[in-house]
């Protein structure tokens, strides 16, 4: 069971690094060895930072936004996916061996048309396969060695946004646009049961589209809790504003235990979730006016105990040292909003940053 009281002093949480990039980052992952953080960007690049000494390498090859980056536990391979449905498996040690800067390296393998958009990926608990999910509603398995198709699990009939593997390795959880979270038996590939996170989906009569979804998933280290992130009560399909929320379920019963709301006023979905070692839940969201927050919910709490205001972030990855976490983030650049507000030469794209927070003494 998770601790009844948090053991992490949230007052010590602080930003320790903000690693700039020319475009917003869409995803990130810390390597199992702890030396690297990989990120995918809107400029179609895979970024690989070595943390100490700090070095940045940029790998081209994708032809659309890089939406997924996941390390394998073999400490050698890294899977990336993009919004053209392409998967690429990299030998990240080979990338790291190249001089910092732009790196020309071929992927170990590549699969095109894996999905229409790749939205999520995890390593299969057996270590021999990758599991991916996309907006085509499909969960697909791929041989880790060569990228050949290794199975397909069907059970969602709408877009998928999130995947998570249960700590016991027996279950995979998948979350979709309609707020359904299926719990799959990894051995059989069958749905065992589902969690009802439908409040995270909104489709009013005058909407032209479904809004929301189970945008993020996390399972507590002891496997007893499932956190599903997104937003409730979307007001429109235009600004897509809603009330950011995390639905906390008991894994064993599927019962909704509580709904967590961020302390800071923000209007976008929770896109990053991670349980810290003591059961504290970290949640990262978006906000249209660029003021979002990284929030920390102690075990059993319904309210955030600590909030750090910052630009929108699109995920969370825990560092294996148990003391740091990374956020793939947005960084404003020049004036935005409606209209020009700048001369042609001054109209520039927004930037990104990999932001690293430390929540315990190193």
């Amino acid at each position, binding site marked *: 069971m998770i601790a009844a009281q948090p053991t992490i002093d949230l007052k010590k949480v602080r930003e320790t690094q903000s690693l700039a990039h020319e*475009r*917003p980052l869409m995803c990130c992952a810390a390597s199992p060895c702890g030396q690297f953080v990989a990120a995918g960007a*809107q*400029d*179609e690049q895979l970024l690989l930072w070595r943390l100490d000494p700090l070095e940045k390498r940029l790998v081209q090859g994708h*032809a*659309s*936004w890089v939406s997924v980056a996941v390390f394998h536990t073999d400490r050698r391979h890294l899977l990336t996916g*993009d*919004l*053209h449905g392409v998967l690429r498996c990299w030998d990240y040690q080979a990338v790291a061996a190249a001089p910092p800067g732009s790196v020309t390296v071929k992927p170990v393998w590549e699969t095109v048309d894996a999905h229409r*958009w790749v939205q999520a990926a995890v390593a299969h608990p057996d270590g021999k396969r990758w599991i991916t999910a996309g*907006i085509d509603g499909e969960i697909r398995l791929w041989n880790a060695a060569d990228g050949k198709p290794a199975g397909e699990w069907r059970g969602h009939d709408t877009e998928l946004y999130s995947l998570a593997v249960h700590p016991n390795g027996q279950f995979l959880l998948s979350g979709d646009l309609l707020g359904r979270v299926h719990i799959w038996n990894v051995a059989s590939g069958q749905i065992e049961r589902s969690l009802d996170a439908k409040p995270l989906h909104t489709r009013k009569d*005058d*909407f*032209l*589209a*479904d*809004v929301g979804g189970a945008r993020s998933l996390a399972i507590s280290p002891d496997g007893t809790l499932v956190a599903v992130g997104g937003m409730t009560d979307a007001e*429109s*399909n*235009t*600004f*897509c*504003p809603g009330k950011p929320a995390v639905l906390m379920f008991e894994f064993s019963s599927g019962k909704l235990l509580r709904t967590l709301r961020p302390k800071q006023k923000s*209007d*976008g979905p929770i896109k990053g979730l991670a349980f810290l070692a003591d059961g504290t839940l970290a949640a990262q969201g*978006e*906000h*249209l*006016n*660029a003021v*979002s927050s990284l929030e920390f919910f102690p075990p059993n709490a319904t309210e955030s105990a600590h909030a750090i205001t910052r*630009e*929108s972030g699109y995920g969370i990855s825990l560092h294996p040292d148990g003391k740091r976490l990374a956020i793939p983030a*947005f960084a*404003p650049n020049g004036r*935005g*909003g*409606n*209209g*020009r507000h700048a001369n*042609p030469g001054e*109209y*520039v*794209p*927004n930037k990104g940053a990999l932001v690293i927070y430390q929540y315990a003494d190193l």
Partner: protein
Amino acid sequence: MLGALAGGVATAGAAQLAPLAMPATDPGARFNISSLLGPAAAAEMQRQGRQVLFIWLDGGISQLESWDPKPRTEFGGPFRAIPTSVPGVHFSELVPETAKRMDKLAVIRSMSTKDENHSTGVARVQRGDPKNRGVDYPFLGSALAKLLPPPANNLPPYMHIKPGRGGFQWQDAGFLGAKYGALALGEGKPPIHIFRPPSIDDPRDAARNALRRQLNGEFRRERRDSDVAAYELSYDMAEQLMKRKDLFDDSTVPAADVARYGSHPLGRHLLQARRLIEAGVQFVKVTSYHWDMHGDNFNMHRQLVPQIDRPFAAVIDDLHDRGLLDRVLVVLMSEFGRTPKINTRLGRDHWPEAWSLVLAGCGVKRGVVIGKTTANGAFCDGAEYDCGHLFHTIFEAVGVPSSKTEYVNNGQPLPIAHENCAKIAEVLA
């Protein structure tokens, strides 16, 4: 029923319809197309029977996710560009069906309208006049209800299919007067009360109408004639619509058509619009709301754009197959485009500086792209066109000489399109 017209304003509800003709007593109606062009030319315009299908995506469809993709550029977004039926012309992968019909379309990629606000942008673009003249210009549908010869079918010349409630939209007419307003069909349904109660037979109906006309005649002696005329004409058109209930009988629509257009509102409304165009309605406007993706732009465009792509392709096919593209002008546009810059919520905001629209049908070239944007899509590269240019072009396409025709409002001559703008010659056939 007479009480429905309060202060010269026809209210929503029953079949209160717009005009059939341009009575000389109307202050906004001194102009007569035959007086300008001569009887022969006016007769030719009448014979040509030009019509317009005007599709309005309220807010702004992203030009980068539709007609002017810039993949793999700093503002390009995640989608691919795909080839169209015209070599060298590419659209976003979100409009594959329209891409196959590019050979029937004219795409303007250098609209630059400068107004970034909904509150003023909608009226400015749809009234077509960038200049504040102290009067409310008519929306395009009202303008053409005035400028085109009245159709022989006596159907309301300006009908507006929209989500939500219907009614009579007198405001669209601006200074032309209420009778040039739009008959709005909420959800594409006919006006309520279009079906005469069974208890009222023909003689009784005729007697009631005669009484109404008599009372209206007495009522108008002390009041502005145009208001009463608009109200009376609404009844006349109601009578015509009552004879065409078939236009709203969904049971006659082939299931294959429903499948091609789609069951979502825009699909249903464009199919209904096609039926009205086939019946000869002069100007049919179809509005779809909620095209304003400040947040989650790419997921929303991925869901929304197919809702215009498929039915738009279907209506182009159907008009072409029926030989109607030679006399029907189709316009597909928004208030503005969307910012190249992608915001923190992965949205795009309002961008009037450089955006695209699509034309097809009578009077316009087929398979052409007019204007271009910079490599990153942010600004026009070369000539820019405002809504004044667009109105000149639309008027010319349907046969109205835009620079030689004027409204006369209470004795004041007013250009039908901005005098500092001109038609976009490259668009016109």
